[in-house]
């Protein structure tokens, strides 16, 4: 097999892995959009906040340490203990539920029935608030996140591909772990939405608020539940990105990459978010590999948006979005 094709296959696989992470972020968007019609711009910052909290808890960091030290003239930074990864993840999940509650209590409860653009603006505000809040709470330095996921080149794939193609593929173990986590998460979410009472209630609220109330569904409960789920998805995304490139504030920018994913997959489709993420991931890597050298590279920066633009023109509802059917 020619070298170009073999390298192409490796690029394809790597793209798939990157795509999984885009999918995870997009998934958080879809959950909230479906249930409440809110386009949550702060989803990326939620991933950052979750990752910061996770690291903070694991390292036994004192929250608001800088603030406390400034006010009281103390010099404390760490409690002096560390928390095992699993325990810290559970604690972070509790924090994400609390955040979901607070977001509803202090913001969206007061905005019921407002125009979508107002809700959207509120989430932009929330994004900046949360970024600053995370900064105050845990400090702004880049942190290492290691929850014990396997890292480094996968030897098996390297060996097998070397024997087959005469060239060992470089696939990061972390990417494989991310893929497994994402797949499990998605299957769990789909099953939950499709086959449980709460999932059914969630879909009901997405469709019609009045009708949902009339069968005894508490909108508040469902909204908090959905924001919590989005928080868990953000946590998963935050762990993966954080483990890959450290927990830093640029993490919140991956939210922007999720936008084209949503254009492709449709704003209301869970499978759409997954497939959209994979297409963008593979697409931008392959494009860079094939076309990049001809145009001087750096195509990854704009390819996703270009593709989204094409979709907006030719298929506005996305690949899997609900086609707007109206009986007249």
């Amino acid at each position, binding site marked *: 097999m020619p070298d170009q094709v073999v390298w192409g296959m490796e690029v394809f696989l790597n793209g798939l892995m990157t795509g999984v992470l885009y999918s995870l972020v997009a998934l958080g968007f879809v959950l909230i959009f479906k249930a409440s019609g809110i386009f949550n711009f702060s989803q990326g910052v939620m991933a950052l906040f979750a990752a910061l909290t996770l690291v903070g808890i694991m390292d036994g960091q004192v929250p608001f340490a800088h603030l406390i030290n400034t006010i009281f003239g103390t010099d404390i930074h760490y409690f002096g203990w560390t928390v095992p990864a699993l325990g810290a993840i559970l604690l972070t999940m509790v924090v994400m539920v609390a955040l979901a509650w607070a977001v509803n209590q202090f913001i969206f409860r007061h905005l019921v029935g407002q125009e979508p653009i107002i809700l959207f603006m509120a989430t932009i505000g929330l994004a900046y608030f949360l970024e600053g809040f995370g900064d105050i709470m845990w400090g702004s330095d880049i942190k290492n996140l290691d929850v014990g996921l396997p890292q480094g080149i996968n030897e098996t794939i390297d060996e097998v591909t070397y024997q087959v193609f005469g060239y060992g593929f470089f696939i990061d173990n972390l990417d494989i772990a991310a893929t497994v986590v994402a797949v499990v998460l998605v299957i769990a979410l789909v099953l939950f939405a499709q086959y449980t009472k709460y999932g*059914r209630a969630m*879909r*009901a609220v997405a469709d019609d608020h009045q009708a*949902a*109330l009339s*069968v*005894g*569904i508490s909108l508040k409960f469902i909204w908090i539940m959905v924001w919590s789920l989005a928080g868990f998805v953000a946590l998963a995304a935050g762990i993966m990105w954080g483990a890959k490139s450290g927990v830093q504030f640029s993490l919140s920018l991956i939210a922007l990459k999720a936008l084209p994913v949503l254009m492709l997959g449709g704003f209301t489709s869970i499978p759409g978010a997954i497939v959209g993420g994979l297409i963008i991931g593979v697409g931008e890597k392959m494009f860079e590999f094939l076309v990049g050298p001809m145009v001087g590279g750096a195509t990854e920066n704009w390819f996703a948006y270009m593709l989204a633009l094409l979709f907006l023109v030719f298929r506005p509802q996305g690949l899997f979005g609900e086609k707007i059917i109206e009986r007249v």
Partner: protein
Amino acid sequence: MMALDATEGYTTEDGRRIGGVVMEMRNITLRFGGVVAIKDISFDIREGEIRAIIGPNGAGKSSMLNVISGFYKPQEGEVWYKGEKRPSMKPYQVARQGIARTFQNIALFDGMSVLDNVMTGRIRHMTSGLLSQAIWKGRAEAEEVENRAKVERIIDFLEIQHIRKTPVGRLPYGLKKRVELARALAAEPSILLLDEPMAGMNVEEKEDMSRFILDVNDEFGTTIALIEHDMGVVMDLSDRVVVMDYGKKIGDGSPGEVRQNQAVIDAYLGVAHD
């Protein structure tokens, strides 16, 4: 109609058993800003009866239904339910107490199948917690199976088996109305509120719907309160009728009594108000 005690019951001519008062509205007044939608209205609903609220357009019938189901909160007056004064409640809490309703312009979950729509009606009977549901173990699974059986029975009863798996958004109007009725019925409500169940239907669909309402009342003994502005339909269906006009109660009694009532005749014939 003879005067009855609140707890007393009686048997109708066609042999149905009507029980004591299950819900009582006491001096309800509802205002929107300066507009008085309901003015000092009192009436009761007895167990097992079909109670109609009629009146010309804009009489305040829908507002009254929204007060009963908790969507509107009256400024004055009390709602008594099962012998107790009802505290201020959110609509979903009222629904969980066993008051199910349909809507005048149909509020269904369009993206979901007929079966799923009707299943949402069972929510007030499903008590397993979020965690149990999330891991789909123990009570959650048994509960789903048990409730599913009840839903299938209602689906059969309302003759919508053939569309069980169809997304509701694709159904024609008349069938949507029936699915909405099925969903409300799935709640096994103490009181079933129907907001203009025949609105926008052709004669055949109206006859079907009338038959279903009577059958539901007969088969399940469900207490039904319904709103209509078409007098003809209501007179054949109901045991007792409240007549509203301009937010006030102008008549209350059996269909025969109401038909003789001069104020009611005036309201429907459009006699000038002074």
